């Protein structure tokens, strides 16, 4: 028996289902019917799967540094959007990713960042007049 990532995932599903069921028990019947009907079988199935995963753990289930790095980049992009809004975040993100993560040459990183900004600006701002929220920095200066 080994506590593998697969068992942890199945256990997390079981915990979510248990939380849903316990929460729904406090609601009126109409509101609770669906969450209970879905939550109870999910709880049973997830617990069963967690037991299987504990007894017979699958091999090679590590996420790896590169996978985590992509998640970190996604978090960084969201932070950039919050700070500077989409129009600023798009070229900055493309440039930073290409230069630091992919190790591309300066001219290529700058050219592709400008191309991304150009496409974004032309399609969303010029053509579709799509209203993007300003970032915290723009709001602060206003």
């Amino acid at each position, binding site marked *: 028996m080994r506590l593998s990532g697969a068992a942890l*995932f199945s256990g997390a599903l079981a915990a979510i289902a248990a939380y849903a069921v316990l929460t729904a028990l406090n609601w009126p019947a109409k509101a609770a019917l669906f969450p209970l009907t879905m939550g109870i079988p999910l709880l049973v199935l997830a617990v069963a799967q967690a037991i299987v995963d504990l007894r017979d753990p699958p091999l090679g*289930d590590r996420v790896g540094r590169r996978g985590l790095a*992509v998640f970190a980049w*996604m978090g960084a992009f969201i932070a950039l959007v919050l700070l500077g809004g989409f129009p600023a975040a798009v070229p900055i993100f*493309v440039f930073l990713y290409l230069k630091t*993560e992919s190790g591309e040459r300066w001219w290529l990183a700058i050219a592709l960042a400008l191309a991304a900004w150009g496409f974004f600006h032309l399609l969303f701002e010029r053509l579709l007049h799509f209203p993007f929220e300003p970032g915290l920095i723009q709001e602060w200066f206003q």
Partner: protein
Amino acid sequence: MLDALVQGLLLVLQWNAFSLMLVGMGLGFVVGLLPGIGGAATLALMLPFVFKMSPVEAFAFLLGMHSVAATTGDITSILFGVPGEGLSAATVVDGHPMAKNGEAARALGAALMSSLLGALIGAAALAVSIPIVRPLVLTFGSPELFMVTVMGIACITSLSGQGTRAQLKGFAMGFLGLLLATIGQERQSGILRFDFGLTYLWEGLDLIPVLVGIFAIPEIIDLALRGTAIAGNAPAAKLGAGVWEGIKDTFRHFWLVVRCSAVGVFVGILPGAGGGVAQWMAYAHAVQSAKDAKDRARFGGGDVRGVLGPGAANNSKEGGDLIPTIAFGVPGSGAMAILLGAFLIMGLHPGPDMLTKHLAVTYSMVWTLVLANVIAVLICLALLPYLSLVTRIRGGLIIPFLLLLVFVGSYTANRQIADLIVTLAAGALGFLMVRYGWPRAPLVLGFVLGKLAETYLFISMARYGYSWLGQPLVIVLMVLTGVVIVFPYFQERRINAA
């Protein structure tokens, strides 16, 4: 009727209408590639531009854009694993693995040709069924619509993979999807469910960020982990050579394409059944049509039939969607509700007038669907050998653009920053599901259908009590649901016995 059909064609071929249709198509082509802002959102954004147009011009512009967006959505789904439109996620399941196997051009050829056939079948259904479809639409009340959603949910058995363990995992994911669909304010009692004190969750989770996160982010991480191009080390010559193979695949599995198109038309006609349902039901049907267990195991790993079914249903749905919108003013989907706004702007009233006084305008819509799809598919087919070369670009170069596609697409669906966080969370969930062998399709199906099922169940109970369970069409749909559930097991047992 024939006069009106010809007149409708001539109206679309007029210089103004035709050129506006081409402009709409160009716009639809680009936005169709982006998740989130596809179909309905672009229709809403373009609505103010139709005020000065004639009805034929306005519908040529809007429908040209909308129908092409449905077609090109498949391109990003196949090439990058990013659903081009929220509703085209089913194409990802087999289309993207084909791209990874170096068969991008074949998958794209199959998706485009099946989309074209689906669109033609949808347009034909629209042309012939408007006068006769009224009884069908009026027969489907909330109990029947509830049973249709249950039938859709029952497709989980076909989407879960084979063996007891895979089936149990599939069902668990289906239940999780249905549970996620309960987040937000419960419409009957007003109770806030699983909102964690966040107003963002009052309306529940939106489909686009969840779909895009679950399907696209695991593919992007996989690309980063592999450190190669999407097509890996497949020979470059093989990439562009499969277009004709894909086209031939469409005709090799012609009746599957026809049946899946019929699923699309049927679901499209039903008001409120939702476009996502059609694609997944068509995909499930394609899986069910496998000859044996070995044949069925190919789905999910890059089987062309998994591309043909959803591709056909996605476009035939457009014709089906238009039927209740034109004939009764009852929109079959969100996009059609917006199109209804265009009718009112044009001073047209959907209903009997559209079948008598304005029949030529109605047929001009049919022709717009046909022409826009034929032109779009021809252009795409010419570009396919070049498009498929995108799968040869180094992962390190393409990943930031894919991430932009994912997050800009998720944001443009609702303009909510919180949608970005939901996308990230859904991406983490999708990644872990792939890593630990949990199927994603049942979760999405449960999520798409959960809210609809609950709403229709409540209306049925409030209106009819338990007596709706005895209605003839409900019983027929129950039997069909039973067949959908039992069929894969029956098929497996029959094969094992043989």
